[in-house]
């Protein structure tokens, strides 16, 4: 059976993934909008930066975050000057790291959905007296809804599956930074294979269900 420590790790993981997903949708949407609409020469650069976590080893991201958010790093100095202390080994620190880590998983589906909406819908809305913000919420967001669902599910699942970055900056503190993936690692390290199996099987089932959901609803749109 799952121990109290395991359950705490599961609760923490779900909380981390939820908070991260909400922030990602808030942060990722304007980025996706900009990327979908801009003709700026910086589009390629920004797109590449957003996509970096797709190819970057989590250890690289974790290492730089550890250095940047530490007391001698620029982010660390900033958070300390705000009286917030430094972020590594804290839940907010994990959230920040997860937001970076899962950013492309949210930005890209939303960006694709925005691009699919097309210029013409925006023009039609403008000729019907809808201002840019109005158009965004009454036309673009509803039309891009499948993209948002994909983004939220992928962002959530990817954060749940995060390991390397958390390991590098989490400090493995129960109920604060010890998420399921780290807990599994600890179990394996401590040769507690039965416990490791239980959690691992849970993760496997969760990931499969998420992907099954995404693949079976692909292409299904309510109004088509």
């Amino acid at each position, binding site marked *: 059976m799952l121990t109290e420590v395991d359950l705490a790790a599961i609760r923490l993981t779900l909380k981390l993934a939820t908070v991260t997903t909400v922030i990602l949708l808030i942060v990722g949407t304007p980025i996706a909008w900009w990327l979908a609409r801009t003709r700026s020469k910086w589009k390629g650069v920004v797109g590449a930066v957003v996509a970096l976590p797709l190819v970057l080893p989590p250890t690289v991201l974790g290492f730089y975050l550890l250095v940047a958010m530490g007391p001698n790093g620029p982010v660390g100095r900033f958070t300390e000057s705000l009286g917030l202390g430094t972020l590594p080994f804290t839940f907010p620190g994990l959230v920040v790291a997860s937001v970076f880590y899962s950013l492309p998983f949210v930005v890209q589906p939303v960006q694709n959905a925005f691009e699919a909406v097309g210029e*013409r*819908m925006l*023009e*039609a*809305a*403008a*000729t*019907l*007296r*809808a*201002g*840019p913000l*109005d*158009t965004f919420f*009454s*036309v673009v967001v*509803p*039309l891009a809804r499948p993209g948002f669902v994909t983004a939220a599910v992928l962002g959530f699942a990817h954060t749940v599956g995060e390991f390397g970055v958390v390991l590098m900056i989490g400090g493995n503190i129960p109920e604060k930074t010890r998420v399921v993936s780290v807990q599994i690692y600890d179990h394996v390290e401590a040769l507690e294979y039965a416990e490791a199996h239980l959690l691992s099987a849970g993760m496997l089932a969760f990931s499969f269900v998420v992907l099954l959901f995404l693949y079976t609803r692909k292409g299904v749109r*309510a*109004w*088509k």
Partner: protein
Amino acid sequence: MEMNALSADGIRARCRVDWPGFTLDVDLDLPGRGVTALFGHSGSGKTTLLRCIAGLERGVGEVLFKGTVWQDSAHGAFLPTHKRPLGYVFQEASLFPHLSVRRNLEFGRKRVGGQHRVSLDHAVELLGIGHLLERMPGGLSGGERQRVGIARALATSPELLLMDEPLAALDLKRKAEILPYLERLHDELDIPVLYVSHSPDEVARLADHVVLMEEGRVVASGGLGETLARLDLPLAFAEDAGVVIEATVGEHDARYHLTRLDFAGGSVFVARRPEAPGSRLRCRVHARDVSLARERVEGTSITNLLPATVTEIADADTPAHVLVRLEAEGTALIARITRRSLDQLQIETGLRMWAQIKAVALLG
């Protein structure tokens, strides 16, 4: 001075757009009432001009609507599209796929403050879409979609209606389905319309004023009848060159199932029409359907004969033909005849002749 007088209650559009391989450069004063057709081949810049007026394209220049500045590049003024009191009908209806027909209609309507000059019911009734209100756009035919698109634009009670080839994406049957609705718009609503088209038939049926465009420039701008009857315009070279005549239903001939149409300069008989005497009808007389005779011809099956005076002779689209412009008491006609006939009959300007009209296309 006259230009200023026009722009006070009309539309002034001075626009320049520079794209690689294309330049739009127009300076136009358009009437603030009736249907103005922007006519020309694809690539002539008519859609771009329309988009500039709508603010969807941001050229350099100025756009004034009935004295209100919509754009004035010299002073950095630019009223965004959503603040311009216009309705816009796109070539494809561009309905919002996530909203029902009703909610599409309400979309613009509820964003317009103040009073509605066109009631929603009226727009729905005018376009005959009452039975479609609860449907989703995905389930509509092309013609139905376009009618909803037009009603949606009307529902905002626009002060100017811009239509970008609203029929171009439709087949003949659908076109025939929608044209009557457009004519009703013209007859029943007092909204100025700018109508982009490359179809002479549509223009002849709908327009009061024609702007002829070519390669980003305005070639001619004027009333429908006078513009169509000008021989110096590319319009006249088209295979279906001709004139438009505004006629009144005179009387019906029950025995032969004919209807007499009267207009300035004469009258013609056409197959029986359903309209009551006194109704106004617009009809089109193609140049190829007009032949000329020096004397009144007897013993011919052609019943429609009009006395007219030759006012102009010009080359036609083939070397074998010429175009002859005639004036019949205020109504212009164009005849397309062979050069040989021209010489044999010794036709020259000022000559009084008989125009024989073989066919009249009634435009509704």
